[in-house]
């Protein structure tokens, strides 16, 4: 491998080593990603290699194709998942980039074309894979490593982690605004739950909302709250295990879904559902909700 420039990041209990043929500048990535950057370490969990202007023949076979929707064609072989960013018109030959990843995406070789080299040089990137979102990486890695990613706001208060789950408009950003003066906001849009040493931990990511609140801190997971904006404050423990499971599944972020990934993800969702108290939370956007939650 030619000389590679290196950076290290951490989230979800993973250490990510990011290698690039092009040198990093101070502003290659935006300030939110900077929060997750760490000093070099000897042992990493995930390695991402960025190559630029280097063509590679992936020798993919149409029989191995598991996904085809412009701009992506995805192939699965015995060893790898291969992503090809394709033209949106015929002929659909490879365009912009190819990614060759191992099955759990702990090793990624990303081949970027000259356009993406210019994007990289321009800087202020929001994602380390140079894709529109890194969640294709995080979802896959987590699914095979006792974790999952949720549409959520997460906060740390008194060394306990609180996860507020909801789709767009449910009140994730509102909850972050309510909490931000008293608690550490781990992230206000995408958060990681991961089982480490038989305990669930909560981690933020750099995928934030317009509010832009992120932290590289983490906390043991205390409770999960399904958000509903209301005219009153009310909290109710969800006792029905099927309902907990279904609601967690519904809010788990999914990327490339394969049978082995979904089976592994279901295992962890079921364990979260069994081990962590889940609540239905109605809140009226006032500060009162904080006391109700933190007194649980």
């Amino acid at each position, binding site marked *: 491998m030619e000389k590679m420039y290196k950076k290290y990041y951490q989230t979800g209990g993973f250490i990510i080593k990011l290698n690039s043929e092009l040198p990093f500048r101070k502003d290659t990535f935006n300030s939110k990603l900077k929060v997750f950057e760490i000093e070099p370490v000897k042992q990493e969990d995930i390695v991402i290699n960025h190559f630029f202007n280097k063509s590679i023949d992936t020798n993919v076979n149409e029989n191995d194709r598991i996904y085809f929707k412009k701009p992506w064609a995805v192939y699965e072989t015995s060893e790898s998942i291969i992503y090809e960013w394709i033209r949106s018109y015929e002929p659909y030959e490879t365009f912009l980039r190819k990614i060759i990843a191992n099955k759990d995406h702990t090793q990624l070789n990303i081949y970027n074309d000259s356009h993406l080299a210019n994007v990289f040089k321009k800087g202020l990137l929001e994602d380390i894979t140079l894709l529109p979102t890194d969640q294709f990486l995080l979802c896959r890695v987590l699914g095979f490593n006792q974790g999952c990613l949720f549409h959520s706001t997460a906060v740390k208060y008194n060394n306990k982690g609180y996860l507020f789950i909801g789709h767009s408009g449910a009140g994730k950003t509102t909850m972050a605004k309510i909490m931000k003066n008293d608690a550490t906001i781990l992230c206000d849009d995408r958060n990681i739950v991961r089982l480490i040493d038989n305990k669930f931990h909560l981690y933020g990511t750099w995928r934030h909302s317009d509010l832009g609140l992120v932290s590289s801190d983490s906390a043991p997971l205390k409770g999960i709250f399904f958000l509903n904006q209301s005219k009153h404050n009310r909290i109710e423990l969800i006792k029905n295990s099927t309902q907990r499971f279904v609601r967690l599944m519904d809010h788990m972020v*999914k990327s490339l879904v394969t049978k082995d990934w979904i089976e592994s993800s279901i295992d962890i969702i079921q364990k979260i559902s069994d081990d962590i108290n889940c609540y239905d939370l109605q809140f009226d956007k006032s500060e009162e909700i904080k006391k109700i939650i933190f007194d649980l």
Partner: protein
Amino acid sequence: MKKIELNKIYIPSDKVVSRLIEDELIIVPIESDTIDFDHTLFSLTKTGREIWERLDKETTVQQICTDFSKKYNASIDTISADVVELLEDLLKRQLILPY
């Protein structure tokens, strides 16, 4: 809408994963043809679960209905109507396929 034929065999699609949560069977579709899919989970309680568990490569719908008619001491017409209704729903959602 596709109709269930009593003399045919239907099996679970290989694009689903099922999981028992307490006494409910949750069926999760694997929709690998969509990356950001808004998936729907399908839940089967006691009798529905029993029907799902009988869907193998050897048993016709007619055989399932006959066995259930005996087990629950109900008329074959009543049982057949219920079994076909469920299987048509599962077929419509592509959770089962003709074998």
